[in-house]
């Protein structure tokens, strides 16, 4: 529309909805990994491949959101949180997805054979991981409420209650990982290459939980560092 003057420009780009959307993608990625491991266990390799593609697409879409945020959060914007804190938080949150993508790739490298109880353990680890990212998602979801109430003490406390929960769950992931590692290194009659690859999976699934825990810490720094 021509012939109008506008004060609308004073309202700048708001990154908060996109941040929450990006966080929701982390949850979806872990959900896809869960499905992928189920398919793997059943020897459904076509499905494993399809899911890899799906995770790739998801990660690509998330990257676009990340770029959108980074491209728009300029120095001339006045945000209710520190710009550097926000970008650092986004970077760590993005690591959750990157690590999911790595695992999604690594499970397609080789048709691994493993006893049932190993698959059971993987399924336990992934459920725990799902719990981590679900809590993580809920926490980041709170950001819009925080902005709406101008970071009222009550809302800040409610959002930050998630941080120790996530840290505790991440610790539980660590314990499951230790159990899995011990089990894998003591497998009888297993192909050493299979063992090697599975150990790598465990390590990288650990990175996913780790990234979620670090991102929740960055979230706390961002929310408190105003």
């Amino acid at each position, binding site marked *: 529309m021509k012939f109008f003057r506008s004060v609308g420009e004073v309202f700048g780009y708001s990154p908060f909805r996109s941040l929450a959307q990006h966080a929701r993608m982390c949850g979806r990625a872990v959900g896809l990994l869960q499905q992928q491991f189920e398919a793997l266990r059943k020897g459904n390799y076509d499905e494993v491949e399809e899911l890899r593609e799906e995770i790739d697409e998801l990660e690509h879409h998330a990257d676009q959101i990340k770029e959108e945020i980074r491209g728009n959060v300029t120095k001339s914007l006045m945000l209710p949180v520190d710009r550097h804190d926000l970008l650092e938080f986004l970077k760590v949150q993005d690591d959750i997805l990157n690590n999911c993508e790595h695992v999604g790739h690594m499970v397609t490298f080789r048709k691994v054979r493993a006893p049932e109880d190993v698959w059971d353990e993987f399924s336990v680890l992934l459920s725990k991981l799902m719990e981590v990212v679900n809590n993580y998602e809920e926490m980041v979801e709170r950001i819009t409420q925080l902005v709406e109430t101008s970071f*009222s003490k009550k809302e800040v406390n409610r959002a930050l209650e998630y941080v120790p929960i996530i840290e505790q769950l991440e610790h539980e992931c660590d314990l499951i990982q230790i159990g899995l590692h011990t089990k894998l290194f003591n497998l009888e009659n297993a192909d050493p290459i299979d063992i090697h690859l599975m150990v790598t999976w465990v390590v990288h699934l650990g990175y996913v939980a780790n990234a979620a825990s670090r991102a929740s810490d960055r979230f706390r720094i961002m929310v408190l560092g105003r």
Partner: protein
Amino acid sequence: MDLFLIAAAIVGFYLAWNIGANDAANSMATSYGSRALTLKQIIIVASVLEFTGATLFGKKVTHTIAKGIVPIELLDHNLVVYGALAALLSAGFWITVSTYYNLPISTTHSIVGAMLGFGLAAVSQNHLALDQIKWGVLAKIALSWVISPLFGAALAFVTFSLIRFILLDRYASESVEHVFRYLQVLTACYMAFAHGSNDVANATGPIAAILGYSGTVPFWVLFFGGLGIAIGIATWGYRVIETVGRQITELTFTRGFSAEFATATTVLLASSFGMPVSTTHTLVGSVIGVGLAGGLASVNLKIVQKIIFSWIVTVPVAAAMTISLYTVMVVFL
């Protein structure tokens, strides 16, 4: 002479119409952005209260524009007619051009620059001495242009901070916002009233000068200006309200209330001092104030540069255009 009066009436009306279509619309867009009022309601509220503000409170600023800058009582009446008409034409033209390019210029700055141009042209033709232009008043006006956005920002900051610490920190944000929905209807009215009281002068000031202004503004001149603004809102402003309102979605009722309350108070204060200020610039200041109080998801500070730039450009351009038009009229008529 009648021809000049008709020309002044037409251009003056166009100016008032443009003020309604753009400035009034912008100051009402915050109420539409937060959805405190529907578009229809806003048009009715804005038209009625802009008109009321203009007719009841528009006198002092009209006085400042009419004879506060150029001492028209010292000039031959014919020259005043040329000068004021030239000022109206220049301001009207400059506003049209910059509106076309979506520049955030102020009608107030244009008309003040134009009246200054008229004074300088009269000086150049030895009808006035340079020190007879009321530099003191001009300095005050310029100061009010700096102070009004800052004051708006400070007031909005305090208002929103109070709402935040007294209400938002204690009660559920949904119920607080719900109450402020009704309060924002009041500030929307307040805003329209304040805007009418200040901005009508941009059109009525030069018209009053042409009519041989002596000290009291005829009521029907303000009526004419107020009507022009109301028609501007109804015929074009609603589209501007819709467009601008769509850009303002992050504004909740408490934020809208704070920004509008601060702006309207600042502008009404300026009106009571007879200072012509820019309502839109004050509103931008107030929105930034709410942002500083942590009330907004994001404020784009680039607009401040744009406003300062348009400020620096508007006054000389409007003055220069008026000088040329005035000189042409004096030489050829």
